[in-house]
């Protein structure tokens, strides 16, 4: 039996390594493209954020004395004075100023209106303008208190100092663990999808499956070999992605992040993540093979696997959202629990209960899918369904 499995497995492997398209999809993309894209987006995003944070604020002011107040209070940035709000509206729309402050002095202080152009690209500078206004407010309060001879502590009785107790590993794991979990499981899925359609529906369409079935080989053994092979390509895809992402984390980040990534990649975490992704991959492989077996042609198989692809993508995106954790019902939702467990493993906070639940439930579902596949593999209608 093992010899038969080895023969079938070797044949699938030979075909796989000669199919450049599938090889590119399952190995090159996860190893190079996705991590490089993620690294590039991360770098460009942080650079953009930095430039927005560091660029001088461009503040328009309308109203006598407001510009003077801004400068006296130590407000940053370049000031542009306008005679009226209408005069500055064009500059605000065109982005020549970030905000326009329109204000007038009253007996008790100042009434200030902040005019902004609420697009996503200006959120950072607008936040900075708000912080500057808060600073001006504080300046005015302190001045009033000084005039009245009241100490500042009378209005600011609470002094808060923040201490972050989270270990570097947990801090980094919580930030990137969700994204890495998404990539690992998503690519395990696409790795299975890329080969499952070809090794069953494709072979059925090309007639090569019928030639194999005309030999004394046991069809169930054949399907076991195909399941093993499809699972292997799924795992290969996930591991390539992990290797690529780890390389980005270890080479392309700040030294403190690098140290955190090194801490995350310990043997226990990797073993737990491997086990979690493996069971998910076997489930994906079994489901994909079943759809491929039931389809008349590779095209039909692709049209059946596409909705599953969308469903898995949505489920994984949901699991990645902030605030979604394994407490309560989420522990029992298939795929979501695997994704959450992978994230927790990267944070170093994976509980035994979540690990066992995620592995156990996925294994059960995988066994069910394999059972259905066993029935399909004996179905003449499914095997010899003509396109």
């Amino acid at each position, binding site marked *: 039996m093992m010899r*038969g499995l080895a023969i079938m497995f070797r*044949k699938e492997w030979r*075909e796989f390594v000669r199919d450049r398209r599938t090889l590119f999809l399952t190995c090159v993309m996860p190893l190079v493209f996705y991590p490089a894209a993620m690294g590039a987006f991360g770098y460009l995003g942080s650079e953009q954020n930095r430039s927005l944070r560091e660029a001088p604020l461009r503040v328009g002011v309308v109203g006598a004395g407001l510009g003077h107040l801004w400068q006296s209070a130590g407000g940053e940035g370049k000031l542009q004075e306008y005679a009226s709000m209408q005069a500055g509206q064009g500059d605000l729309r065109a982005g020549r100023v970030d905000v326009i402050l329109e204000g007038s002095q009253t007996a008790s202080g100042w009434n200030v209106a902040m005019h902004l152009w609420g697009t996503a690209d200006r959120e950072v500078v607008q936040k900075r303008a708000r912080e500057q206004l808060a600073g001006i407010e504080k300046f005015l309060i302190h001045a009033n208190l000084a005039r009245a001879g009241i100490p500042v502590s009378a209005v600011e009785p609470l002094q808060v100092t923040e201490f972050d107790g989270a270990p570097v590993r947990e801090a980094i794991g919580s930030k990137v663990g969700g994204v890495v979990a998404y990539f690992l499981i998503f690519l395990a899925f696409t790795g299975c999808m890329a080969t499952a359609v070809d090794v069953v529906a494709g072979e059925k369409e*090309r007639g090569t499956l019928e030639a194999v079935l005309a030999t004394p080989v046991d069809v169930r053994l054949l399907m076991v070999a195909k399941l093993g092979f499809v699972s292997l390509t799924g795992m290969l895809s996930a591991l390539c992605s992990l290797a690529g992402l780890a390389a980005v984390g270890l080479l392309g980040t700040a030294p403190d992040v690098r140290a955190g990534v090194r801490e995350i990649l310990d043997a226990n975490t990797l073993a737990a993540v491997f086990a979690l992704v493996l069971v998910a991959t076997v489930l994906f492989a079994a489901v994909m093979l079943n759809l491929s077996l039931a389809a008349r042609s590779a095209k039909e198989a692709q049209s059946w696997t596409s909705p599953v692809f969308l469903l898995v993508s949505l489920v994984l995106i949901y699991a990645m959202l902030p605030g979604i954790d394994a407490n309560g019902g989420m522990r029992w939702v298939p795929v979501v629990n695997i994704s959450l467990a992978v994230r927790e493993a990267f944070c170093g906070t994976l509980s035994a209960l979540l690990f066992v639940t995620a592995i156990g439930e996925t294994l059960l579902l995988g066994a069910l899918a394999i059972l259905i596949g066993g029935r399909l593999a004996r179905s003449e209608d499914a095997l010899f369904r003509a396109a």
Partner: protein
Amino acid sequence: MRGRGRRRVGRPINVGPGRILSHLRRIDSLAPAAPCGLDEGVIEVRGVSKTFHPGRFGPKQSVEAVRGVSLRCLPGRVFALLGPNGSGKTTLLRMIASLITPDEGAIQVAGFDTRRDGRDVRRRLGFLTNAALPNTRLTAEETMDYFGGLHGMSARHVQQRRDLLFERLDITGFARRPVGGLSAGMRQRVAVARTLLHDPEVVVLDEATAGLDVLAAGNLLAMVRECRQAGRTVLFSTHIMGEVTLLADDVGILHQGRLVFSGTLENLSANRISASLEEEFVRLLEGRAA
């Protein structure tokens, strides 16, 4: 694993000493098989019916693909199964190759029941369809290694058979090129070598010349002749009368799942009413339809 012991407890039909010798021998060439009595059918089909029912993967309505067909293919002879498209030829051949199971009736191939001893049947049978071309990303050599392994042949035996077949079929020159880059005729030759690799007693061809050019089809027909000379039983389906007159010893005409004629080619030719065999074929089908 079912072996010869299982065969004894089965229901062998007319298994003489010659047949047993034929099954036991390890053939290393295309040498003639051991002779069999002419009354012994290597393929025995008895009252076989097959209906495809509507279902999850089945047709939209019930299709009676094969209805009460009985036929016998004698050893060392070529049996042509003739019929128009949709007459049930492929279904019948798949049942003979134990790929699908008959609803009624029984089929025995080389003494083995297709329903009970499917693997033994497939061990002794070479099955080739025009659709089942070799895997395009493997070379001809790798294809032979793969199929030899599936048939449980040793590496040495595979190599011997491969070398012999490659020489006979003139494959050696392109044996290490991926099949996907070969012409249709070359691919067909690789498919033929794959079919004959395990030295089957019975060769079943399902419209194997369909879609081939004249040269490739000619090569395939030559292979059928060679199989007959080597004492193999060949059952082939076609809808081309020319192939039948060139090759067949016996003819069965299938129409709408029923066998409307079964006999020798001489018999069909001698008793025909029409001017030619083609016209006789059409007459038989139309008569049946009427």
